[in-house]
C-alpha cells in the first residue's frame, strides 16, 4: 500500500509554488497544534485538547484572513468553553474588594489565562524575521481570534457558560497584579477601536466593567486600614489604561470612553450637592482616600496621646503627621498621573475640565463661614483635589494666559456675583458685556490656571478658619481644665470628688477636640502641598501685578507704574487677591522654612501693591495686605525696605491708610490694622533711609501726616481710657471681695453680677492695655524724631490735654482707684506708663507746647504738676535727670500759666462776637463756615481731622470750604491792641 502511494506521486508534475504552500500549511498547523499541547496537563483535560487538535487538522488555510480567523476563533471558543474549575490555590485575600472564593481557580480564570498565554506566543512568533506571508497570515488571524474570544466573554455573549462579571474580575485582578503585558493591552485596544474589526460598542462593553471594578476598589479603601499599596495599584492601572494612545502619538480611546460614561459628569442634585456630585461621579472616589475628620464627625482614632501637639503654633509637626505626608505624596502624584491623560486628550479634555469646574461650583458653600459639613466634600478630599490642580498648574506659562477668560459667558468659573477689586456691580456687568461674542475654546493653560485659583479658595481659607477656631476653642477648654485643677487644691471630700469628675470630663473633651485639630492641621501643613501653594500663589500674584503694570520689573523704580490702573485689574474678583493673602498669612506662621528657601519676589510684589492700595476698593482687603507685610520678620523684612520701587510711596501709604481706615465701621478691625502699621513703623525705624524720610515728613507737616498723628492721639486716648476704666472696675470688685464677711452675705444674684463685671473688666484691660502702650510709644517715637507737628495748635493742644489728663489719673488723688491685686497678669505696669508720659513731655519742651500745657484748663494747675513731681521723687518713678528736666519744664509751664491768667484778667470783657462758639476763647484766625457760623480756624480744623462735617448742622465739610473772615480778624486784632494800650 505504501509503495503504491509513492509510485503514484512520482509521475505528478508538482510546481515549486505548490510545494511552498504545502510547507506553510504544515508550519501553521504545527503552531496551532502547539497552542493545544496537552503535555503536562491533568488527565481530565485531555479530551478538549484532543478535540482542538483534531479541529486544527481539519482547517483549510487557503481562505481569506477573516474566514481563517473565524474558524480559529471557534476552535478557541470551544476549547475555553470546556474550561474546568481548577484547584483553589492561594485563598488569601490580596485585594479586599475581590472575593478569592469566587475567582480563585474559576473557569473564567482558566480561560483568560489561556488567552493571555496564546497572545504572547503569537506575538513572539510574529516578532521573528524571515517568516512566510502565509504563516504570518495565520499568526495574525490567531491573534485576532484570541481578541475576539476575549471580547465575547467580556461582553457576555457566552454568559450562560462563562460569566462576564467573573471574567472582568479576573482580568482586573491580573491588571492590578501587573501580570498582563502592556503589549496585550495596547493591541487589544487597537483591535477594539478598529471599525473594521469591531462594532462601536465593543470597547465600551469590554472596558466599562473594568473601570467599574476599579472604582469599586478605590471606594473600599480606608486610610486608617493602611491600604496604600492597593490604592497605588488601582491608580497605576487607571493611568495605564487611560494613557494608551493609537497610534503612539494619537488619541486615547479609553480616556474618551471614560468621559462619555453616564456617571462621569452627572447632573448635580439639589440636595447635598457638593458631596453627592463629588462621591457619585466616576472620578470622585479616587480623591476620597485620606485622613478623614470633620466637625460633624471628628476622628478620635488617630493621634492618640499626641493631643499636646495640637497646641503648637509654629508649624512644627509630629511623627504621625510626617508619616501621613509620606504616605499621601505618592498617592497624590499618581492621582495627577491618572488625570493627565484625561486632560491631555483633545476628546476628553472638555468634559474633564467641566468635571473639575463642577466639583468647584457644587462645593462653593465651603467659602462661607458656616456650612453643613455633610453637604460638601471633606477636607482631605479637597486637599487631594487641590494638590492635583497645583500639579497641573506647575508648568503654566503666564504669558500664555488669556486674561479675558473669567469674564466670558462660557467660562467654567463663575465670577458674575463676586465682589471686584475696584468696580461696582453695574460696572462689572457692563465690563463683562464686551466679551459676549468671544470664542468658546481656550487653551488648557488658561482654563486650568483660573480653575486652580477657584479651587484654592475652597481649601486654604476654610482650613485656616478651622485651625484658628478650634485653637481658640481648645484654649478655652485648657483654661477650664487649669481652673479645675487649681480648685482641686482648695476643696476636699464630696466637693473634691465632684471637681475631679468634671475635670476628667473636660480633659476627655479637650483630647477629642485636639485630635480633630491635629487632623485639620495635618491637611493644611503638608509641606508638599504648601510648596505647591507657594509656587502657584507666586504665579497668581505675578499675574495680578502684571495687570497693574505690564512686565513689571521688580528691580526698577516707580516711574514704570501707570498713573491710571487698567479696567481689567479693577474687574478682577476680590478673592483672586484675598486668597493669596490668606495663604501668605498661613505660610508665614507655618511654613517659614519653605518660604526662606524661595526667592522673595512675593514680598516685593505685595509691597508694590500696597503702595498702590488706592486701586483696591475694599479697606478690609488692604488691611489683610497690611497684616501680611506686618508679619514679615527680618531678614525677609529687608526685602520691603530695600525695594526701590516703593521708596517714594511706602511710608506715605502706611500713614495714609492708618487714617483712611477710620470710617469703615469695623471698630476692632481698625485697631488691628493700626497695630500692624505701628509694628511696621517700629521695624522701619531701624532703616536709616525710612527714618530720615519719616523725619522729613514730620518736619514738612503735610496734611496727611497731621491727620495721621491726630488718629494716633485719638487711639491713645481711647485705649488708655478703656484700660483705666477697666482697672477701676476691677479695683471696685476686688475691694468688695476683700471684705469677706460682707461679700459672703451679699445676695447671690448681686454677687454673680459683680463677678460678671469683674470678668468683663479683666478682658477689657487685657485687650486694650497693649494697644495703649503701643500708641504711646509711637507718639514718643514721633516726638523723638521730629516734634514739629506738635507746634501746631490742632495737634499740640490735644496732645497736651491727653498727657495732662492721664498723668493726673496715674499720679493724682484718684491713683489708688487703679490698684489691683495682680497687675502683671494684665500687663499693667504703672511706673512704665508714667515714664512714657514724662518722656513725651520732655521731648516737647519747646515754647509752643509749654503754652499748650498751660492752656489746658480742664486738668493743668501749678499744684497738679508740683504734686506729681513730689510723688515721682518720693517713689523714684523716673530717673533723676529726667525728674530734673521735668522740673524745669514745670517752671516754664507755671510762668506761662501765670501770664495766661493776667491776660484773661485783661480780656474779661471780650465781645461775644470775638469768641469761638465751641471753645469760648478769643479767636485768633476766624473763618466762616458755609452755614454762616464763624469759628476759630484751629478749632474747626481739629474737628475736621476726626469728623469731616459741620458741627452745627452735620453737613459734609472740607478745608477748602472755610472762608477766612479778614474783617472780623482785623477787628479782633484792633481790640487786642486797644487793650494793651490802655493797660500801658
Amino acid at each position, binding site marked *: 500500500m505504501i509503495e503504491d502511494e509513492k509510485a503514484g506521486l512520482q509521475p505528478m508534475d508538482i510546481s515549486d509554488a505548490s510545494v511552498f504552500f504545502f510547507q506553510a500549511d504544515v508550519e501553521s498547523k504545527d503552531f496551532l497544534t502547539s497552542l493545544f499541547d496537552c503535555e503536562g496537563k491533568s488527565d481530565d483535560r485531555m479530551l478538549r485538547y484532543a478535540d482542538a487538535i483534531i479541529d486544527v487538522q481539519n482547517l483549510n488555510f487557503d481562505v481569506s484572513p477573516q474566514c481563517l480567523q473565524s474558524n480559529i476563533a471557534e476552535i478557541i471558543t*470551544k476549547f475555553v468553553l470546556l474550561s474546568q474549575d481548577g484547584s483553589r490555590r492561594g485563598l488569601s485575600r490580596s485585594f479586599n474588594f475581590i472575593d478569592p472564593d469566587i475567582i480563585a481557580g474559576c473557569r473564567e480564570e482558566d480561560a483568560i489565562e489561556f488567552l493571555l498565554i496564546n497572545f504572547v506566543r503569537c506575538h513572539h512568533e510574529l516578532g521573528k524575521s524571515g517568516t512566510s506571508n502565509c504563516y504570518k497570515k495565520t499568526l495574525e488571524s490567531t491573534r485576532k481570534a484570541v481578541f475576539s474570544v476575549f471580547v465575547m466573554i467580556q461582553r457576555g455573549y457566552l454568559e450562560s457558560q462563562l460569566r462576564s462579571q467573573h471574567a472582568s474580575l479576573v482580568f482586573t485582578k491580573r491588571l492590578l497584579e501587573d501580570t498582563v503585558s502592556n503589549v496585550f493591552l495596547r493591541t487589544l485596544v487597537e483591535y477594539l477601536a478598529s471599525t473594521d474589526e469591531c462594532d462601536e460598542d465593543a470597547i465600551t462593553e469590554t472596558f466599562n466593567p473594568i473601570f467599574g471594578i476599579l472604582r469599586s476598589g478605590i471606594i473600599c479603601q480606608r486610610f486608617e486600614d493602611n491600604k496604600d499599596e492597593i490604592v497605588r495599584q488601582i491608580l497605576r492601572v487607571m493611568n495605564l489604561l487611560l494613557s494608551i494612545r493609537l497610534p503612539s502619538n494619537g488619541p486615547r480611546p479609553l480616556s474618551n470612553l471614560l468621559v462619555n460614561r453616564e456617571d462621569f459628569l452627572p*447632573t448635580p442634585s439639589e440636595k447635598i450637592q457638593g458631596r453627592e456630585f463629588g462621591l457619585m461621579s466616576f472620578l470622585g472616589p479616587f480623591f476620597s482616600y485620606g485622613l478623614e475628620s470633620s466637625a460633624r464627625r471628628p476622628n478620635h482614632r488617630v493621634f492618640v496621646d499626641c493631643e499636646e501637639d495640637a497646641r503648637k503654633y509654629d508649624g512644627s509637626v509630629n511623627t504621625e503627621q510626617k508619616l501621613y505626608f509620606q504616605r499621601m505624596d505618592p498617592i497624590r502624584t499618581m492621582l495627577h498621573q491618572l488625570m493627565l491623560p484625561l486632560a491631555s486628550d483633545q476628546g476628553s479634555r472638555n468634559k474633564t475640565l467641566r468635571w473639575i469646574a463642577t466639583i468647584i461650583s457644587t462645593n462653593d458653600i465651603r467659602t462661607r463661614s458656616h456650612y453643613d459639613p455633610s453637604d460638601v466634600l471633606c477636607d482631605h478630599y479637597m486637599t487631594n483635589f487641590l494638590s492635583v490642580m497645583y500639579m497641573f498648574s506647575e508648568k503654566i506659562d503666564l504669558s500664555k494666559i488669556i486674561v479675558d477668560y473669567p469674564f466670558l459667558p462660557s467660562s467654567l468659573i463663575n465670577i458674575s456675583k463676586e465682589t471686584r477689586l475696584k468696580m461696582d456691580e453695574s460696572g462689572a456687568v457692563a465690563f463683562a458685556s464686551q466679551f459676549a461674542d468671544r470664542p468658546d475654546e481656550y487653551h488648557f493653560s488658561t482654563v486650568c490656571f483660573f480653575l486652580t485659583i477657584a479651587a484654592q479658595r475652597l481649601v486654604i481659607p476654610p482650613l485656616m478658619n478651622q485651625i484658628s477656631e478650634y485653637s481658640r476653642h481648645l484654649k478655652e477648654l485648657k483654661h477650664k481644665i487649669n481652673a479645675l485643677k487649681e480648685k482641686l487644691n482648695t476643696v476636699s471630700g464630696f466637693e473634691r470628688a465632684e471637681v475631679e*469628675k468634671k475635670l476628667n*470630663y473636660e480633659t476627655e473633651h479637650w483630647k477629642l477636640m485636639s485630635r480633630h485639630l491635629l487632623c485639620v492641621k495635618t491637611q493644611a501643613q503638608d509641606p508638599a502641598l504648601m510648596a505647591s501653594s507657594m509656587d502657584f500663589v507666586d504665579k497668581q500674584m505675578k499675574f495680578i501685578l502684571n495687570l497693574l503694570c505690564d512686565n513689571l520689573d521688580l528691580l526698577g523704580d516707580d516711574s514704570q507704574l501707570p498713573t491710571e490702573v487698567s479696567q481689567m485689574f479693577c474687574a478682577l474678583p476680590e478673592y483672586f487677591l484675598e486668597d493669596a493673602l490668606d495663604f501668605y498669612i498661613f505660610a508665614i506662621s507655618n511654613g517659614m522654612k519653605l518660604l526662606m528657601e524661595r526667592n522673595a519676589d512675593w514680598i516685593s510684589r505685595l509691597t508694590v501693591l500696597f503702595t498702590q492700595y488706592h486701586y483696591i476698593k475694599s479697606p478690609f482687603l488692604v488691611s489683610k495686605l497690611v497684616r501680611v507685610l506686618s508679619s514679615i520678620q527680618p531678614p525677609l523684612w529687608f526685602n520691603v525696605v530695600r525695594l526701590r520701587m516703593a521708596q517714594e510711596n511706602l511710608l506715605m501709604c502706611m500713614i495714609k491708610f492708618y487714617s483712611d481706615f477710620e470710617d469703615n465701621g469695623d471698630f476692632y478691625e481698625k485697631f488691628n490694622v493700626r497695630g500692624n502699621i505701628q509694628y511696621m513703623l517700629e521695624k522701619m525705624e531701624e532703616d536709616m533711609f525710612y527714618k530720615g524720610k519719616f523725619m522729613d515728613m514730620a518736619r514738612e507737616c503735610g496734611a496727611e501726616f497731621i491727620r495721621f498723628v491726630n488718629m494716633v492721639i485719638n487711639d491713645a486716648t481711647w485705649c488708655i481710657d478703656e484700660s483705666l476704666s477697666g482697672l477701676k472696675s476691677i479695683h471696685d470688685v476686688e475691694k468688695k471681695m476683700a471684705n469677706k464677711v460682707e461679700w459672703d452675705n451679699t445676695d447671690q444674684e448681686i454677687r454673680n453680677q459683680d463677678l460678671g463685671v469683674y470678668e468683663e473688666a479683666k478682658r477689657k484691660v487685657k485687650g486694650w492695655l497693649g494697644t495703649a502702650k503701643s500708641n504711646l510709644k509711637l507718639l514718643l517715637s514721633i516726638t523723638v524724631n521730629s516734634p514739629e507737628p506738635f507746634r501746631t495748635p490742632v495737634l499740640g493742644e490735644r496732645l497736651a490735654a491727653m498727657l495732662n489728663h492721664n498723668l493726673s489719673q496715674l499720679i493724682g488723688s484718684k491713683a489708688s482707684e487703679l490698684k489691683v491685686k495682680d497687675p502683671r497678669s494684665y500687663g499693667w505696669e504703672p511706673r512704665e506708663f508714667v515714664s512714657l508720659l514724662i518722656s513725651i513731655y520732655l521731648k516737647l519742651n519747646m515754647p509752643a507746647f509749654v503754652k499748650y500745657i498751660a492752656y489746658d484748663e480742664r486738668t493743668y494747675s501749678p499744684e497738679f504738676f508740683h504734686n506729681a513731681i513730689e510723688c515721682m521723687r518720693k517713689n523714684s518713678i523716673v530717673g533723676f535727670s529726667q525728674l530734673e528736666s521735668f522740673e524745669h519744664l514745670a517752671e516754664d509751664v507755671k510762668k506761662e500759666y501765670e501770664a495766661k491768667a493776667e491776660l484773661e484778667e485783661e480780656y474779661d470783657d471780650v465781645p461775644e462776637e470775638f469768641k469761638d462758639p465751641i471753645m469760648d476763647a478769643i479767636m485768633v484766625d476766624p473763618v466762616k463756615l458755609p452755614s454762616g457760623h464763624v469759628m476759630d480756624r484751629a478749632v474747626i480744623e481739629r474737628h475736621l481731622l476726626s469728623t469731616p462735617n459741620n458741627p452745627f448742622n452735620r453737613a459734609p465739610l472740607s478745608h477748602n470750604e472755610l472762608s477766612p473772615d479778614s474783617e472780623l480778624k482785623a477787628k479782633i486784632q484792633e481790640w487786642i491792641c486797644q487793650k494793651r494800650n490802655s493797660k500801658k
Partner: protein
Amino acid sequence: MVKLHLKTTCREVPIEEIISTGQIQFFKHLSESTSEFKDQKNVERFRLIYNGRALNEESLKKITDADSIRVVLLPPLKTNNHIEEEQKNRISIALKECTAPYTRPNDRRLHGFNHDFALPDHMTTLLEKHPQLVHDNQFLSVLSDWSLFRAYCVQNDFKDDPIRGQFMYTNPDFLKVVENILSTVGSRYGYENLDYANVERNRPGMLAAQRPIGGAQPVTHALLQNALQAALANIAVPPANRVPAPANVQPAQQQQEEPMQQGYEQQAATLREFGFENDELIQLALEQANGDVQAAMEFLIDLQN
C-alpha cells in the same frame, strides 16, 4: 456549508438558507428544534456572532460557506432596559417599610450610623458579606458614606430622579443589603428587636401591619434636653414623666432587656470615671450606643454642645 456553532454542538448549514430565511425566523426555528435554546422565547436576545461581532442583515450577506459563526444569547440586562413602574413601586414600598424607623430627623441615635460608616473596616466587612457589590459601584458609593446612604436609601430623596438610584431596581440584592446594614449598625444604637420577619411576611399581602417598635423610643433632642435640665437641677426625672414603654411590647422582650441593662454597669462605671455625672444620661447614652463606651461618650459630648 457554514459551520454554525451552538452552545455545545456544531452543525453545518448552507449560508443561503440563513440569508433567505431571515435571522428572526431562523432563530425561532432554532429555539424550537434544538435542546440548547428550547426555553428561550425572546428571539430578540439571539445574535449571530462572526469574529466577535454581531451580524446584521447586511453583513450576513458577506459570510461565505467557509466561515464559522456562532449563535449567542445576549445577557438579559442588555435587552431589558425598561423597568416596569409596578416593580419600581413595589421596591419603593418595601424600602419605605424597612427604613421607617430611621427616618426621624431629630432622632439622636442616628449619629451612631455616621460613626460606624466611617470606621476603617466598614467597607471591607460589607464586601465580605456581599461580594457581588463590587460590580455595582454606584450602589457601593452610596454604601460608603452615611450622608449618601441616608439620602438615597433611608429618605429616598431621589426616587423621582430618572437618572439617580437605578441600582435600587437593577441590583437584585438591593433590599437585602439595605436591611442588613441597617439592622447591623442599628442594633448597636438601640434599634434592636425590629421584626423583619413581619416585613417579609406582609410584603406579598401589601399590608402595613402594626408592628411593635422594639428597644428604646426615638431619642429626640427635646427628650435629651429635658434629661439634661433635670441633671443640671440635680433632680431625677420622676417615674411618671418618663417616656412610657410601648403598650404592646411583649413581656419576653422586657425580660431580655434587663440582663442587657445589667451588662452596662461596667461601662457606666467607666463613663463615671471620665467625669460624666448623671446616671440617667449615662444609662441613656449606653443604651443608644449598645454598650460602646466610646460612642456613648461622643453621644454625651454631642449633647453638651
